[in-house]
């Protein structure tokens, strides 16, 4: 009994020492400082990006035909197959699973509106779909993490050069599409790096221009430079609508107690509700 007790004590002591040795030296946590009055005042000096922004879809259509990304041979083969399938009435379902259109797809092929919010140290883009699509662009001077956890929209840092927001994005899921339409695109397959210059057209301040440079060595032979255009809508009736993508996969019904509930409805492979028989 005494031997057993001694053994337990020794084991506990050894574990405790091991734990202390394994613990890394305490690092001072990096804090997000409380914004100062000057930080808020500086926001007022930024260009006016208020309102709701809608994508120029006709321009997206034109670019899909005239501004093809520099695909690798394998990527081009996939895109040509997708375009042929779409033409034949079998559009490849890239975005019908309610996962986000993500980066860079949101910026390239979205058919939904968005808004842009400025707060100290941050620019936030909020979109109408995907269940509340969102990009956080840190403008507080931080760097990308050395090994960012992959996400649908990646890790974005930004800074202002005059009235232009310069954004750098890494850490995007390899599965997100570099898309030229809702039916054609190739997953970036990893190591993607996106640079953007975002500014209002000096000739028409209700036009926002996204100059994009997409580097994706797994599927592009060189950096793809392209632009997209968004238009400001000031009418209040066009305010962003909550866009919970999966809502369309349910219908309102009642349960046996008479409560209002959502019940799933089936969709076909193309993303449409299955018609009644």
């Amino acid at each position, binding site marked *: 009994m005494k031997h057993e007790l001694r053994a337990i004590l020794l084991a506990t002591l050894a574990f405790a020492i091991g734990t202390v040795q394994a613990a890394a030296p305490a690092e001072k946590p990096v804090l997000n400082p409380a914004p100062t009055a000057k930080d808020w005042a500086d926001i007022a000096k930024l260009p006016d990006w208020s309102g709701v922004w809608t994508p120029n879809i006709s321009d997206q259509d034109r670019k899909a035909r005239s501004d093809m990304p520099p695909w690798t041979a394998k990527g081009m083969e996939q895109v040509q197959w997708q375009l042929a399938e779409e033409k034949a009435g079998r559009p490849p*379902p890239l975005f019908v699973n309610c996962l986000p259109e993500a980066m860079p797809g949101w910026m390239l092929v979205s*058919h939904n509106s968005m808004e842009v919010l400025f707060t100290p140290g941050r620019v936030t883009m909020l979109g109408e779909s995907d269940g509340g699509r969102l990009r956080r662009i840190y403008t507080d001077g931080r760097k990308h993490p050395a090994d960012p956890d992959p996400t649908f929209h990646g890790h974005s840092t930004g800074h202002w050069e005059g009235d232009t927001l310069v954004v750098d994005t890494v850490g995007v899921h390899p599965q997100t599409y570099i898309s030229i339409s809702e039916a054609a695109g190739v997953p970036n397959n990893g190591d993607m790096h996106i640079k953007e210059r975002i500014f209002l057209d000096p000739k028409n301040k*209700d036009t926002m221009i996204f100059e994009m440079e997409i580097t994706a060595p797994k599927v592009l032979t060189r950096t793809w430079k392209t632009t997209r255009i968004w238009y400001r809508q000031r*009418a209040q009736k066009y305010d962003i609508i909550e866009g919970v993508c999966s809502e369309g996969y349910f219908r309102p019904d009642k349960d046996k107690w008479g409560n209002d509930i959502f019940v799933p409805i089936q969709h076909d492979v193309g993303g449409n509700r299955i018609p009644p028989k």
Partner: protein
Amino acid sequence: MKTSLRKTVVCSALLGLAAAAYPVSAHHSTTMFDRDKLIPLTGVVKELHWTNPHVAIYVENSVKQPNADTGLWLIELTSPGNLIRSGWSRGTIKPGDKVVVNVHPLRDGSKGAALQKITLTDTGQSFTYSIRDSDRPNIDQEKEK
């Protein structure tokens, strides 16, 4: 306002025709619908699903047409946001409304279709849409001019 709405609807119809050759849906291409076929469905609206990513209208078709059997049809549209920007609202079409809907049917022959135009039988008002209606700034201010 009525004139403005009519202008909007007519304008949307023209844009809709111009855009008919291209995909018109929110999250996926719509070439699964046969744009070479345009069939009228005549009947009563049974349900409206005013939901993202796509709105749906269920119509009980009571008049048999070539390529269009009688019975309940599912008509797909774009998102609520895109419809609002084309002059619609959630109350534009309601269950119980008598309608004639011109649709592009699914290629597989099932009772599913994409909306081209819907007309309320009682008022004669027609509604269509194009997701390209907001391809310019401040569309509402333009409409009011």
